[in-house]
C-alpha cells in the first residue's frame, strides 16, 4: 500500500486538523464554519462544496454543538467511527485544556476584589452580547408576523414559568409533525 498514508498518520492528521480548528476559533459554532471549510474543502478536499453544505444542514438539525457535529461527520466520512473519535477528541481537547486551566486558576482568584470588579463590568455586557444577535437570528430562522408568538411564548415560559427547555423542544417537534400530518390529511381530501 505504498500509495496511501499509513493509518496512524491518517488518524493523526484528522486529530490535528480539528485540534487546530478547536484551538483558534473564538466565539464558538458559527465562527468555526469558514475555518472548517478552508481545511476540509479547500486544502484537503475531504468533502466537496455540496457535501459540506449538506453536512452543515445536518449538523444544525441534530442536538449538540455545531463544531462537534461537524467534526464527527468529517471524521466518520473519512475513516469511519474510529475516525470520528479522533476528530471529536481534536475539537474537544483545546477548549478542555484551556478551560480546565482557567477553572483551576479561577478557584483561587474568584474572591479577589480586583477580579470581582472586572466581572461586575463584564456581566451586563455578556447579557447584551446574547441579546444583540436575536433580531438577525430570528430573521434567518424564518420568524415572521404569523409565527412571532412562538419565540415570545417560549421566552416567557422558560423565563417566568421556569418550564424546562426539554419540554419546549419536545413540544415544538411534536407540533411541527402534527402540522405535517394535518396537512397530509387535508391534501388527501
Amino acid at each position: 500500500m505504498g500509495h496511501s498514508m499509513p493509518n496512524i498518520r491518517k488518524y493523526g492528521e484528522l486529530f490535528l486538523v480539528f485540534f487546530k480548528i478547536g484551538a483558534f476559533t473564538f466565539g464558538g459554532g458559527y465562527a468555526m464554519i469558514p475555518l472548517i471549510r478552508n481545511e476540509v474543502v479547500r486544502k484537503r478536499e475531504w468533502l466537496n462544496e455540496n457535501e459540506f453544505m449538506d453536512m452543515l444542514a445536518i449538523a444544525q438539525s441534530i442536538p449538540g454543538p455545531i463544531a462537534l457535529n461537524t467534526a464527527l461527520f468529517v471524521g466518520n466520512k473519512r475513516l469511519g467511527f474510529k475516525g470520528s473519535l479522533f476528530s471529536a477528541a481534536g475539537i474537544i481537547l483545546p477548549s478542555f485544556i484551556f478551560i480546565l486551566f482557567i477553572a483551576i486558576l479561577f478557584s483561587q482568584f474568584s474572591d479577589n476584589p480586583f477580579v470581582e470588579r472586572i466581572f461586575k463590568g463584564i456581566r451586563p455586557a455578556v447579557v447584551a452580547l446574547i441579546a444583540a444577535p436575536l433580531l438577525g437570528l430570528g430573521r434567518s430562522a424564518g420568524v415572521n408576523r404569523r409565527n412571532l408568538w412562538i419565540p415570545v411564548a417560549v421566552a416567557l415560559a422558560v423565563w417566568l414559568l421556569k418550564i424546562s427547555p426539554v419540554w419546549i423542544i419536545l413540544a415544538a417537534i411534536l407540533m411541527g409533525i402534527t402540522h405535517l400530518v394535518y396537512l397530509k390529511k387535508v391534501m388527501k381530501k
Partner: protein
Amino acid sequence: MELIDLYIALFLSFFKIGLFGFGGGYAMLPLIQQEVVELHGWITVSDFTNIVAISQTTPGPIAFNSATYIGYSAVTEMGFAHGYGVVGSAIATLAVSLPSLVLMTLVCAFFFRLKNNAWMQASLSVLKPAIIGLIASAALMLMNGYNFIDYKSWIIFGVVLAASLKKVDPILLILLSGVAGLLLYSA
C-alpha cells in the same frame, strides 16, 4: 454527598444538556442554567455569567466550556482535591459530547437525506422559531439583580448592545467592559 454520586449527577445533567442542545451556543444556556444553577446549585448565577463571559473570549463551544468548568468546580467546591475535579471535568465534557457522537454515527450509517426529509423539515418548522425564544430567555434569565447591580450595569448593557449591533468585535467589547468595571467600581 459521595464523590461517585456527584460524578453520576454531573454525567446525567450534561448528557441531558447535550441531548436537548438544539441550536447550539446560546440556545443551550437556559437548559444549562436550569440544571447547574437552579436544580443542582453547583454554581451561583454570577459564576455562571462569568463562565459565559469566559466562553465568549476563549476558543470552543459554550457547551464544552461550561461542562469543563462546572465539572471541575462542582467537585472542588464540595471539598474534594483538584485531581478529582479534573476527573469531574472530563466526565461532564464526555457526557455533553456523547449524544452528538451517537446521533452522528447513526446519521452517517444510514445517511438519511435529512436535509430534504419531510418529517425532519416539519420538526424543524416550529423548533427553529422556538430556539430563538430559548436564546431570548437566556438573556432574560441573566438580566437579574446579581448581574445588574446598579444604573452603571445598565449603561454598560446599553453601550455594549448598541456597539454589538454595529458589529464591534465581542471579544473587544468584553475586554473594554472589564476595564469599565475596574474604573467604575471601587473595592
